[in-house]
């Protein structure tokens, strides 16, 4: 098993009754994985392996950030979409946000 240097890790935080998800995007990222798996896009073992790879990597990120990176990685490996398409779509969402008045739902242009 890989050695973990505890001096470089934050202390355990023993919090009870915390919210299941801290932000809406965490819930969305979580649920997309469950839905993709239920619809047969990948096996649960493939998902666990993708997530472990992210977590065992050196980057210090929050748990759901690891989760999101693993999801992006697995959907491109499975060729459900591509890194290029994800990047382009991300830019479109930023542009959509910039033209949406504060408080209104952000929508991609339909044309």
């Amino acid at each position, binding site marked *: *098993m890989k050695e*973990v240097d*505890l001096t470089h*890790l*934050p*202390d*355990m*935080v*023993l*919090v*009870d009754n*915390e919210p*299941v*998800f801290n932000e809406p*995007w965490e*819930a*969305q*990222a*979580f*649920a*997309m994985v*469950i*839905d*993709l*798996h*239920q*619809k047969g*896009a990948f096996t*649960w*073992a493939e998902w*666990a*392996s993708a*997530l*472990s790879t992210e*977590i*065992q990597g050196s980057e210090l990120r929050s*748990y759901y*950030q690891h989760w*999101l990176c693993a*999801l*992006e990685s697995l*959907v491109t490996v499975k060729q*459900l*979409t591509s890194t290029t*398409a*994800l990047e382009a*779509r*991300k830019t*479109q*969402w*930023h542009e959509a*946000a*910039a*033209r*949406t*008045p*504060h*408080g209104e739902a*952000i929508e*991609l242009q339909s044309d």
Partner: protein
Amino acid sequence: MHSHDDDDHSHLTDIEARVRALESLLSEKGYIDSASVDKIVQTYETNIGPQNGAHVVAKAWTNPEFNTWLKNDATAAIHSLGYTSRQGEHMVAVFNSADTHHLVVCTLCSCYPWSVLGLPPTWYKSPPFRSRAVIEPRAVLADFGVEISESITIEVHDSTAEIRYLVIPERPENTNNLGETELAKLVTRDSMIGTAVLDKLSATS
């Protein structure tokens, strides 16, 4: 003209935009659908939680037949109460006793018995818990305020994508007069991971 820091338009963080990019692309191609994604979120936020595991534990305490079934085939016994895992993994129930205390961890990532406990708490997913639970379980339990006598063996169970563990804590003393429903209310999430033990009831009401 307005400046860039005007707050009259919306902002997405980089992470929010990445999640929206995934969701919109994958649903356009039919790999996911928004309605089922929303339903999954709602289910995990409200319906699936440690109360499911508490039900399993209380039934094991009060129903010897169920107890035996749970020991022999936890997946089927738990399924019989309506708690089914969609991830297809096998459940194993480990029973605390006077000479053995069980502790569950996932050293690789964060495998966890979702169907009976909901989603894992932050500390379960943290690197210190994942690495230390195996190396020095007694010290980790002490961090949780749980003192396990040296005479009691601590067994640590490392979860995988295929096998998840549910700890069946010892039934607290002074609870002989309680039924399944009342007993279930005494069972805490942490006691089913093994980072807590259930106190005996000082006064049953």
